[in-house]
């Protein structure tokens, strides 16, 4: 889908919002600083016709990398037949990103998901609660320093050993 029109648009956007353009596998991505994403999204929506927020997610590069997180956005212009990838690097300590909820309504849940699974704070978000995990859950599961939570499977050779440790539920009153 990469074409000249899109490349030209990306150069314009990069110049205006102080960003850079990177290319991988035929996909161009606009890298923006974190304080530009809110005005940029407003402009994408109002001026450039990107009316659909296709995807919003986070990538964690591990605690030792700085900036640790990247927010990844994908905007789509249905009428203009264009798609736009945007990345926003976010530092690992107290990560905070402005919300896009007021421009794209569906950012609401997607941002809650990033908050829940990565612990990214979205300033100005109307309802920043956990969405997938229980409210009393501790930690953010998709961070790289969070363990997978693997349990040893029960096979014939270790059946008894695990059977002793494994908690089983009983009927009320026991049996």
């Amino acid at each position, binding site marked *: 889908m990469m074409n000249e029109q899109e490349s030209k648009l990306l150069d314009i956007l990069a110049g205006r919002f102080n960003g850079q353009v990177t290319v991988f596998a035929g996909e161009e991505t606009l890298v923006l600083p974190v304080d530009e994403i809110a005005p940029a999204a407003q402009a994408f929506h109002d001026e450039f016709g990107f009316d659909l927020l296709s995807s919003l997610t986070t990538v964690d590069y591990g605690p030792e990398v700085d900036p640790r997180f990247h927010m990844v956005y994908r905007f789509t212009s249905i009428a203009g037949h264009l798609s736009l990838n945007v990345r926003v690097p976010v530092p690992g300590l107290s990560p905070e990103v402005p919300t896009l909820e007021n421009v794209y309504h569906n950012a609401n849940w997607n941002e809650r998901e990033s908050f829940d699974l990565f612990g990214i704070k979205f300033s100005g978000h109307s309802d920043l609660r956990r969405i997938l995990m*229980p409210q009393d859950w501790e930690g953010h*599961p998709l961070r790289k320093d969070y363990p*997978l*939570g693997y*349990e040893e*499977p029960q096979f014939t050779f270790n059946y008894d050993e695990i059977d002793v440790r494994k908690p089983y*539920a009983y009927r009320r009153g026991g049996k």
Partner: protein
Amino acid sequence: MGLEQKLGNMGVVTTRLEDLVNWSRTNAMWPMLFGLACCAIEMMSAQAANYDMSRFGMELMRASPRQSDLMIVAGRVSRKMAPVLRRLYDQMPDPKWVISMGDCASCGGVFNNYAVVQGVDEVVPVDVYVAGCPPRPEALIHGVITLHEKVRRERMKDWA
């Protein structure tokens, strides 16, 4: 068939109370409509025309735990769902049974991670495990019939 031959001309049949109760329990076992994930679709297939679970007196899926006596846990149980599942189980009137349908409900299946309970038997006591990912409708029906056999073997001294 069967009953008429036993009756003879007397209109009376004698049996043990245990057998009578077990017979009536197996022939009107109402499952709770408790689809969680993929297995729920196969459970629906088992209800629909091709497999037709009503042949075994199981056509009535009850939405309320108060009206059902069999819980078919069809699908993976997440940590968020586990307390809800236990509460629903507690709300079911005795006697009650549980079928763990599919690998995820039986042992966690392919999902060995932070979010999924590794076997629903950590939450509720399970009577029959049905293997498969997801099990075919026939497998579910087989599980149900196995449960019926189990119920027929129950003895009165264990009921209390």
